[in-house]
């Protein structure tokens, strides 16, 4: 099974039923796998803040939603993370493509890569780097459960390599 398949299997086994997304090259591959799942609904949104609110709405209604976006989009989300997710203590699980780190071959992503983890730390968000040598599905389940338990965001950072 591909890494994308293992990540989607993790979403399914964690009880996630909806993935809201703005794609980039990597997240687009992951969403293609989401669309093949009979257990997940893919919701294409126009901006990343919408994805956060949609996923929170799923959680408010008793389900489990996930946000699949690029780190550029995550950086857009400071306002809604403060004004919705943190203020109302809502679970919100993210899978975020970590563009611009040493593994990313595309030069123009580097400025985002330099600030992503620093921003997550500054915002006080729990996060982890996906480890493709380990059990990716378990890493997803851990993140979903951590978000639910803390009623807070949890961000799993992935690379293109993790999807292969």
């Amino acid at each position, binding site marked *: 099974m591909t890494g994308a398949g293992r990540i989607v299997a993790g979403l399914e086994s964690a009880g996630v039923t909806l993935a809201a997304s703005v794609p980039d090259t990597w997240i687009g591959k992951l969403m293609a796998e989401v669309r093949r799942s009979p257990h997940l609904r893919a919701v294409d949104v126009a901006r990343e803040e919408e994805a956060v609110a949609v996923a929170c709405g799923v959680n408010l209604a008793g389900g489990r939603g996930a946000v699949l976006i690029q780190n550029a989009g995550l950086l857009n989300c400071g306002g*809604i993370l403060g*004004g919705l997710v943190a203020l109302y203590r809502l679970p919100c699980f993210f899978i975020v493509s970590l563009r611009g780190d040493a593994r990313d071959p595309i030069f123009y992503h580097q400025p985002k890569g330099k600030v992503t983890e620093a921003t997550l730390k500054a915002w006080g968000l729990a996060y982890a780097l996906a480890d493709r040598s380990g059990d990716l599905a378990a890493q997803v389940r851990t993140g979903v459960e951590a978000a639910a338990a803390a009623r807070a965001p949890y961000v799993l950072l992935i690379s293109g390599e993790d999807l292969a």
Partner: protein
Amino acid sequence: MTGRKPFLDALVAWLRPDDVLISCLGANARWLPHLPVRSPVFAMCDSMSAAIPLALGVALTRPDRHVIALEGDGSLLMSPNVLATVAAARPANLTTILWVNGHYESSGGQSLPPAPVDWPALARAAGIARVETVTEPGALAQALDGARAAREPTVLVLPIAFDPAEEIPPYSERPEEITARFRL
């Protein structure tokens, strides 16, 4: 032009216990705790632009409930993209009520950028076919009945008067209380 409160009263009278109300920040959220709302309410005190996508997530998860999102023109001007998102998702059970008064009421009554935005046309252009303008509170229940029966996303545009002297109650519920009470 009518003010907000008669429309809000008409909406509250129309709601059923199995409906769901998601409210934007501002006057709506400040009034709702003081009104006899029979349905679950999630009313925000921050988060401009979050009401419609939050309601979309609820609607897609609970297709057995009719979800009403309240949003203001200032919030929607900040993120009109959400109209296309709703059109793409095509929830059969989501109605958006858009209050149009041309002002950022909750932040002191500043005017929106003075562009003559055609809100019904904007919603239609984004792909929402069912858009209706409601100008009288007495017509709101019929418009909502139509939205409930239509089984497609609906936007109801409500032009309302801006009254800087309106006495709106302050926020009276803490966010954690709102989250804890919201159960479907």
